[in-house]
């Protein structure tokens, strides 16, 4: 809850001593946030309350029955034997995705932050998957990851008998993470690139004069200075990772077994494919709580990770 404390720099000076100014400020503040607040109320809070309301019901869409069942759906949550493996898959998927996405984005940003002829073309090409249709993207990767697909074809050249990527539990998880990262890493890459260009060159020059090796420069100067961007991208990526399922649905359908069934895909199945809207809503509420707790924790940790935020 300590969000605005840091932001309270403006009141450090004259304004706060006058009651009328403070009051006028409050009014201005509310007017400024009014559109967003009304929107959130209408399009997030009210729907969320409705979802909670649904979660207390058994809702058979086809039979058009909507029966109050109290906490029965939450009871079901505890008894759902699939849930532990779904939650495990979700944790592995999100953690893998965030780590791989951020490291690759940072690596690409560093490589692309060089004075090199034609670097713009490279930036564009690395960014291009972001705008490619998800369907086309997933189909191609589906091909490449076949047992007799392009990737194993390349591996065979080096004498390696590649795995059956999408059919083995471990490689299936790796595959869905990697496919997802290649599609979207361009966005984080751009944010990192911008952050890197914001690092004053004089700092590096000073370090070079001091004879600091490149890696040390990176660790001591670059990382701290771009830490706010790291925080921002990691929050976006974690939250985003918990909402990914279209590619999983196409590539593995959550298999083999349940190894790539992440929570949001499970939720989607329950609500939209199996027509258990009540239980689906219950899973929604659980997903929401998990994301909220994670984000809050990250937010609290920012003081330790982030080098400066006034």
């Amino acid at each position, binding site marked *: 809850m300590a969000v605005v404390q840091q932001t309270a720099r403006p009141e450090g000076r004259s304004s706060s001593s006058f009651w009328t100014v403070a009051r006028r400020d409050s009014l201005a503040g509310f007017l400024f946030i009014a559109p967003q607040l009304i929107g959130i109320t209408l399009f997030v809070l009210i729907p969320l309350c409705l979802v909670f309301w649904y979660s207390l019901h058994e*809702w*058979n*869409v*086809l*039979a*058009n029955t909507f029966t109050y069942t109290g906490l029965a759906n939450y009871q079901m949550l505890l008894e759902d034997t699939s849930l532990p493996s779904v939650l495990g898959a979700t944790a592995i998927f999100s953690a893998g995705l965030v780590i791989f996405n951020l490291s690759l984005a940072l690596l690409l940003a560093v490589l692309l932050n060089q004075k090199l002829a034609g670097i713009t073309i490279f930036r564009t090409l690395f960014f291009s998957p972001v705008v490619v249709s998800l369907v086309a993207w997933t189909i191609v990767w*589906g*091909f490449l*990851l*076949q*047992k*007799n*697909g392009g990737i194993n074809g390349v591996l065979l050249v080096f004498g390696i008998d590649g795995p*059956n*990527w*999408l*059919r083995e539990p471990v490689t299936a998880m790796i595959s869905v993470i990697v496919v997802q990262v290649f599609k979207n890493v361009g966005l984080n890459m751009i944010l990192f690139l911008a952050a890197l260009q914001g690092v004053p060159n004089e700092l590096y020059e000073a370090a070079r004069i001091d004879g600091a090796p490149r890696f040390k420069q990176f660790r001591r100067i670059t990382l701290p200075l771009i830490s706010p961007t790291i925080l921002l991208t990691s929050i976006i990526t974690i939250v985003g990772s918990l909402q990914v399922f279209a590619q999983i649905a196409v590539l593995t*359908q*959550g*298999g*083999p*077994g*349940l190894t790539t069934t992440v929570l949001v895909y499970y939720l989607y*199945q329950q609500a*939209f*494919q*199996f*027509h258990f*809207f009540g239980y689906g809503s219950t899973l929604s509420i659980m997903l929401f709580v998990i994301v909220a707790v994670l984000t809050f924790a990250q937010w609290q940790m920012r003081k330790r990770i982030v080098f400066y935020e006034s």
Partner: protein
Amino acid sequence: MNYYKTLKSAVAAIAVAVPLGISPVGSGIANAQDAVNLRMTIWSANEAHLKLFSDIATGFKKDHPNVTVTYESLPFDTYTTALTTQIAGGNAPDMAWIFETAAYDFVNSGALYPLTDTLKATKGYNAEELSTTAAERWTKDGKLFAYPFSTSPFAMFVNNDLIKASGAKTPAEMIAANQWTWDNAIATASTVGKTGKGGLIVRDFNYQIWQNLASVWNGWGASPWSADGKTCTMTEKPMVDALTFIHNAVFKNKAMPGPGESVDFFAGNAAMTITQISRASLLPKDKPFAWDLVPLPKGPAGNYALIGQAGVGVMQSGKNAKTAAEFVAYMTNPENSAKLSQFFPSARKSLLNAEVLKKTNPLLSQEQIDKVVISGIATGKVIPGHTGFAQIQQVVRSGLDAVWRPDANIPAALQQICGQIGPLLKR
């Protein structure tokens, strides 16, 4: 652009019809001229289909000038999902296409308006000629809840070029010698498979849509659950035998592509594929190969056939369910069924003759139509389905992953699947 034009004219028609509908409101009496707008969700967005449908809608308008029918194309892959989302949101269509696998859900839930009375009351409808096997899935307590407008048999497409090149026997030769059995089919597929090409593919199965394997295991008399749907029968001998046969074909004989391997028959890369006859449209035109269409091979339990179906039903919740039912009756009357059958094989007996079918399947020979299409529709069982099928499908899919490994313990895996779907079947 036809669809666009149709839509525009439909909108114009609504614009004209709406004021007509509003004028008598003052009198407070429902008027026969009240404008009625009916919406049908479909999974085809094909231009030729939509043209035919809008022609039918126009034909209906002649006798029902106040009724306007519009068609809403939802994406094929997410069709049922999009449809139920609309229903959940309180915006159910008046009429909807329904997949055979989802049929039990819709029929048993009470979501559909019974059609039998309306069909019987329609002049010249001749409802009796609809084959009972075709209507079975769509019927409950003697009442038809959705009309199966498409009944499409599964058959074996054959690439004779590949088979001859490998030196194996072609299915046609085997049929002539009365040797067209699964063992021999797999032997041929295996020979071709060893040349580096694909052997036999159950199309769209991909180790996920397992219900398509019914095109194989029905030859063993196997079925995933009992006829009343209450008991899991996957642990019984026919199913164990059939899956063991398929497992051997995949992992020992290399006669079928393994999990995670994709081979496309219609690109000329495999010897045989099992799919619905309508897929003949995929045969390549620029790089043709010598192809054949034959019935499914004989299994240990004898000859058999499999069909896929699509039904059209009227949603109970609609305000104009009765009018919608009249439209379905019009859409599927003998005359319009004949028109529909150029895309969707009809289960009406009068349309099940070589003469009609030859017109609508120009690629097929007389013999192929007789042997594959007519007898397939007449005798075929429908792909497995069940109430709550989507969930059962998913559970079985996940359980069968244990079977699709070289060292699988098939009876144990099936035992486990039965344990998991047992409670779901009883629901």
